[in-house]
C-alpha cells in the first residue's frame, strides 16, 4: 500500500512518542486515527461525548509528561474541543490538537481559518501543513514548541490535500525520513546563572522570615526531587502554589502546608509575614493572591526562578530573577549549597516553628470539626473517611467547587503526581475524562474522583467509555443538592436568594446504575467507609453518592472570594435578607478563620 499523508502524519506522531489519541475513525482525519489505533502501545479513543476528548488528552499528557493528541476533523469537533483546550491552556498542559484545513468552503459555515481564530487564545503555537513532505518537520517543530519555556497546547492545521497526497517513499526509508524531519526532540534546558544563584542564596540567608514557594513550573520540569531536597538543605519554610502541589513533600519537616490557601491559616501567616520569598516556577497569579495585599506582605523581596523571561515579574516586582529551567536551576543550587555556598540560618528555625504551630492549630480545628456525628454528613468527614480507606498510592482527581476545597484539605498526600485539579480554569466536569486519561496511562494505579454533584453530570456519559475500556476507579459524589460554592456567595451577598443554585435531591447512584455502573447512595456517616470499600472492589467506574450538608462550607473559600472580588463593589443593601444558612458552631469557626487571615490574628 502506498504511503499517503495520513500515514506519514501517524508515523510522525508515533515516532515523536505519541501514545494517546482521541478522535474518530470516520471523517477527514479518520484514516490517521485508524492508523494510530493499529500501532503497538497506542490508545486511540473515541469518547462518547466530543467535549470530553480534549480533557482526556489533558489527563494523559499531565500524567505521562508527553503530549497526547486530539484529532478534530469537523468544525463541530473544533468547537467541542474548546472546553478541554482552554482548561489545558489554563494549566499549561502541552496537548496537541490537529485540525483539518479545507481549502475551499465545502458545505459548512466556518471560513477557512476560523479554527485558528478560536484556538489562538489557548495555543502557544500554531503551525500549518500544506504539503505531505513537510509533515515530520512541522510536527517536530510543534513538539519542541510544546515543551519549550512555559508549556502550553499546540495546534497543527493540516491541509486535507496534504493528507491525501501520495508520498513517493519506499517503505524502508520512511522511518529515517520521519526521524530526520522531526529533528531533535530533546527539550533544551536553560541553566541558571551561578552569580544570580549566589545572590539569591545570600538574600535568603540574610532574611528574617524567608519562604520557598514551588509552582507549576516545578511540576512541568519534573523537578520535585530537587525542590524537596533544596528545601531540606536550606532549612527554610516551604509551601507550594496551587499548581505546584506535591513538589514539597508532605513529610518534609519544612513544609508548612498548602497548596496555596488550601493550606489554610499557616499559608496566610507565611505570606503575610515573610520578608523574602523565592518562587520557583510560579508566577503568582490569582490562585496565590497575586503576591500582593491584602494577603501578602507588600514589602516582600522576591526571588523568582522562571524559564520564560516574559513571565518574570508578571505580578510582583522581582529583585533577583534567575532565568532557567526549574530542574537545572534547582540542581545547581543544591550543588552549590552542598559545596558550602550556604549555611542554614539558625534564626529561621523560630520562624519555621511559628508557622508549624499555626498549621497545627488550624489543622486541629478543622479536623475536630470533621466528625461523623453531624445530622447530615459533613464534607470534611467524607473526605477524611475516603482518604483513610483508600489504598496506598491512590491518585485523586478533584472536580467541583467547595468539594475541591474539602478534598484539598483532607485527601492530599503532598507527593508528586498524586492529585489533580484543573486549577487555572477551575473547569467543572473535568473529573471523569481526566481520570480516564490518567488511568489509560497507568491502569493499575488506584484512582478516586472527588466529585461535586453539580459537576458530576457534565461528562457523565464517559462512565460508559470507562466501563467499555475496563478502567476501574471510584467516584465519590458530594451530593449537597446545590452549586454550593456559588450558593454560599448568594447567602452572603444576595440575601440568600438562591436563584439558579439549588439542584434539589437527585439520585446520582441511580444515574450511574442506569449507565451500567456500580452506584450506591449513602446518607449515614457510618455507611461511608463500607460503601467506599465496596465500590473499590466493584470494578469499572463505581459511584458512591453521598448526601452531604448543603449548609456547610469550607473556611478557605473565604480566601478565594477575597481575591476574586478584590476591588469589586458589593452593595450591602442587596445582601440584606433572611439568611437561610443554618447557624451553628461551624459559623464561628469560619468567622475566626476570616479574622485570622484578614487581620493576622491568632484566634483559636
Amino acid at each position, binding site marked *: 500500500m502506498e504511503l499517503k499523508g495520513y500515514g506519514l502524519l501517524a508515523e510522525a506522531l508515533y515516532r515523536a512518542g505519541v501514545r494517546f489519541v482521541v478522535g474518530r475513525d470516520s*471523517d477527514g482525519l479518520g484514516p490517521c486515527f485508524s492508523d494510530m489505533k493499529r500501532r503497538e502501545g497506542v490508545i486511540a479513543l473515541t469518547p*462518547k*461525548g*466530543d*467535549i470530553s476528548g480534549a480533557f482526556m488528552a489533558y489527563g494523559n499528557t499531565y500524567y505521562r509528561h508527553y503530549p497526547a493528541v486530539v484529532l478534530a476533523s469537523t*468544525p*463541530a469537533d473544533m*468547537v*467541542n474541543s*474548546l*472546553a478541554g483546550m*482552554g*482548561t489545558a491552556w*489554563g494549566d499549561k498542559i502541552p496537548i496537541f490538537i490537529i485540525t483539518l484545513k479545507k481549502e475551499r*468552503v*465545502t*458545505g*459548512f*459555515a*466556518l*471560513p477557512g481559518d476560523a479554527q485558528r*481564530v*478560536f484556538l*489562538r*487564545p489557548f495555543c502557544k503555537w500554531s503551525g500549518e501543513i500544506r504539503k505531505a513532505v513537510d509533515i515530520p518537520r512541522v510536527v517536530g517543530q510543534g513538539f519542541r514548541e510544546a515543551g519549550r519555556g512555559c508549556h502550553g497546547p499546540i495546534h497543527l492545521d493540516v491541509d486535507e490535500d496534504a493528507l491525501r497526497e501520495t508520498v513517493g517513499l519506499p517503505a524502508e526509508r520512511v522511518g529515517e525520513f520521519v526521524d530526520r524531519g522531526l529533528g531533535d526532540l530533546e527539550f533544551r534546558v536553560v541553566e541558571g546563572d551561578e552569580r544570580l544563584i549566589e545572590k539569591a542564596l545570600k538574600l535568603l540567608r540574610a532574611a528574617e522570615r524567608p519562604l520557598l514557594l514551588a509552582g507549576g513550573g516545578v511540576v512541568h520540569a519534573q523537578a520535585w526531587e530537587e525542590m524537596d531536597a533544596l528545601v531540606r538543605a536550606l532549612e527554610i519554610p516551604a509551601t507550594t502554589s496551587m499548581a505546584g502541589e506535591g513538589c514539597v513533600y508532605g513529610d518534609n519537616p519544612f513544609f508548612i502546608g498548602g497548596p496555596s490557601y488550601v493550606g489554610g491559616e499557616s499559608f496566610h501567616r507565611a505570606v503575610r509575614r515573610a520578608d523574602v520569598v523565592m518562587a520557583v516556577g510560579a508566577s*503568582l*497569579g*490569582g*490562585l496565590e493572591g*497575586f503576591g500582593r495585599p491584602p494577603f501578602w506582605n507588600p514589602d516582600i523581596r522576591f526571588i523568582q526562578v522562571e524559564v520564560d523571561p516574559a513571565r518574570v515579574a508578571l505580578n510582583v516586582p522581582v529583585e533577583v530573577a534567575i532565568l532557567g529551567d526549574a530542574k537545572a536551576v534547582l540542581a545547581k543550587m543544591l550543588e552549590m549549597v552542598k559545596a558550602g555556598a550556604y549555611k542554614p540560618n539558625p534564626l529561621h528555625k523560630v520562624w519555621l516553628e511559628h508557622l508549624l504551630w499555626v498549621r497545627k492549630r488550624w489543622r486541629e480545628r478543622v479536623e475536630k470539626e470533621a466528625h461523623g456525628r453531624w445530622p447530615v454528613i459533613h464534607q470534611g468527614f467524607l473526605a477524611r473517611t475516603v482518604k483513610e480507606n483508600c489504598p496506598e498510592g491512590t491518585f485523586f482527581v478533584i472536580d467541583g467547587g467547595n468539594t475541591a476545597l474539602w478534598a484539598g484539605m483532607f485527601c492530599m498526600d503532598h507527593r508528586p503526581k498524586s492529585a489533580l485539579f484543573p486549577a487555572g*480554569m*477551575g*473547569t467543572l*466536569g473535568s473529573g471523569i475524562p481526566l481520570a480516564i486519561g490518567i488511568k489509560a496511562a497507568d491502569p493499575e494505579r488506584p484512582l478516586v474522583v472527588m466529585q461535586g454533584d*453539580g459537576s458530576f*453530570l*457534565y461528562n457523565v*456519559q464517559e462512565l460508559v467509555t470507562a466501563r467499555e475500556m475496563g478502567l476501574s476507579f471510584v467516584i465519590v459524589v458530594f451530593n449537597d443538592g446545590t*452549586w454550593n*460554592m*456559588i450558593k454560599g*456567595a448568594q447567602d452572603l451577598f*444576595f440575601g440568600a*436568594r438562591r*436563584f*439558579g443554585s439549588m*439542584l*434539589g435531591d*437527585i439520585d446520582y447512584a*441511580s444515574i*450511574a446504575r*442506569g449507565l*451500567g455502573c456500580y452506584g450506591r447512595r449513602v446518607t449515614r456517616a457510618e455507611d461511608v467507609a463500607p460503601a467506599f470499600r465496596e465500590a473499590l472492589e466493584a470494578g469499572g467506574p463505581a459511584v458512591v453518592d453521598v448526601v452531604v450538608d448543603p449548609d456547610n462550607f469550607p473556611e478557605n473559600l473565604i480566601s*478565594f472570594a477575597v481575591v*476574586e*472580588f478584590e*476591588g469589586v*463593589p458589593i*452593595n450591602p443593601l*442587596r445582601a440584606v435578607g433572611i439568611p437561610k444558612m443554618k447557624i451553628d458552631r461551624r459559623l464561628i469557626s469560619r468567622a475566626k478563620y476570616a479574622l485570622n487571615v484578614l487581620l493576622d490574628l491568632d484566634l483559636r
Partner: protein
Amino acid sequence: MKFLNGGDLVALTLAQEGVELFVGIVGGQLLPFFDAVGRDPRLRLVVPRSEAAGAMMTDGYSRSSRRVSVNMSTVGAGVIYAAAGTGYSWGDHVPILSISPQVQSWKMYPAQESLQGCYQGDMMEGITRWRCIVYNWKRIPQLISRAVREALSGEMGPVHVDVPVDVFYEFHPVTEKGLKRLLPPPGTTRFSGSYFPEASTLREALSIMERSERPLIVAGACVMRHGAWDALAKLADRFEAPVISTRGTISVAVQEDPFYAGIMGHAALPVAERALRQADLVLALGTTLEETAELVDRVDGDRALLVQGSPEPERLGVFSEVKLGLAADAVSLCRSLAEGIVGESSIRRSWTRACREEYLRSCEVLASDAEGDSVGRAVVALGRALSPKDRLVLDGRSSFYWGSVLCPPRAHNSRFFSAGLEGCGYGLPMALGVKLAFPQDRVVALCDTEALFQHLRELETSRRESIPVVVAVVGEPHDWRSVAEGFGVSGYSIATEGELLDALRAHGEGAGTVVLDLTGFGS
C-alpha cells in the same frame, strides 16, 4: 429611588427588548445578573447541566421562535463550554445572546493569570457575529440593546458580551426618571420594518426569471430566520418553480406543497442535485451560499444563472459569482418577486411537476428501502405516529437520513436540524429549547445513539425544570430504557408500533419526558 447594579441593568434592558428566556449555570461573577433575572417575574430562568447544552437550548428556542434568548456562562470555565453550543448557532445563523462576566476590568488585557481569566472574547471571534466588552456601567443599556440588534440583523447569528465583574457588581442610585433616561424606550433600538429589494435590481431579476424555463429556488437559512415560508410558497406558486431546501431548512415547505422538491445534500434524494445541474436559473434566497457551497460547484456558470438574495448586501457574491444580487429581507424579497412576476409558463410548470414527481419517487424508494433497514422501519413508524403539529428535532446521521424524509414536515417550522458545523448531539437540549418556545406542542428529538450520548445529562434538566419532551433513539443498540430510568424519567424499549403509540400516549397524559428506545424496533 433604587440601587441598581450592572446585573439589574442588563436584565432590565433585555426585558425591555422583549427577551424572556435565560439559560445558564451560576458563577460568582455572574450573581448580580442571576439575582436580577430571578427576581423579575417576566423572565424565565432555566439551569442546564452544562453550558454547552445551555447554549443549545437557547439555540432551540431562538431557532424555532425567532426570538433572542440569553445564554449565561461564567468567566473562563463556563464560556469555553458554551462555545460548543454557540458554534452550532453560528453555523446556522441562530440569534442567541451569550453573556459572560470577565475578571476585574483592570486584570483582563493583558491577562495576568487571574483564576479563570482568559481571552474568551477572542475565542468567540470565530463563532459570533459581534462581540463587545462593557467597561462602563452607564453604557450597559446601549451595548446590550446593540447586542440584541446585531443578533437579529441581516443574516442573524449569535453575539457575545463580556461584562467585567466590577461592572456587573457596580451599583448606583437610580430614580424612576433616571431609569427612563437610561433605558431606551421599547421599539426604539432597532429597525423592525421591511427591507425591500431596490427597484431596478428587482426588475432585472424579474426579467431573468421570466426568461427562465427551468428555474430552481433554493431556500436558505434566512428564509427560516425571517419566517418567510408563506411568502416563499406564494412565490413558488406564482413563479411555478420548484423549491429545494438545505439540510437546515427542511420545514421551509410542507410535504404536500406541490412545488417542494427535496433537500440538498441528502444522499437519497438525487433529485435535488439533478435539478441543480439541469436548472437554467438558480434563485438562492436568504443565503450567503456558504451553506450551499455544494450547489455552487454544480451550477454550470455558462448555462445557469445564479441570482442570490441576502439581507446583507456585502455578503452577496462572496462565496460564488452571481449574475445578480438582491439585498432584502427574505419576506420582502419573496413577496416582491411573487408580485412582480407576470405571465404563466407551461414549460416551467411541467419542469416543476417533473422535479416534484421525481422527488416523490425518491421518497418512495427510500420508504421501501426502509423496510429492509432497522432504523428505517423505526422511523417510518415514528413518522406515522406523529401528528402534523408535532415539532421534530433531528440529530445524527441516520436520524437525518431517514427522519427528514420519512417524518416529512406537515407544518412550517416544525423540523430542526443543525447543519452548519457537521456536528451532532444537540438533539435533546435543542428539543428542550423548542419546547420552551412552544409549551403547548409535542416536541420530539430523534437521535442516533451516538448523538444522544453527547448531551444525555440533560434528561436531568428536563425533569428538574419540568420541560417534557419525547426522545426517540435509533441506531447502535444500547439499553436506553435503563439509562432513562436511572435519570428518573420514563424509558420504553419499543419493538412494535403499538408500543410506540402507548408510550406517546403516556407522554401526552403527563408522564413527563419519555425516552423511546427504538434501537431494537421490529426485532
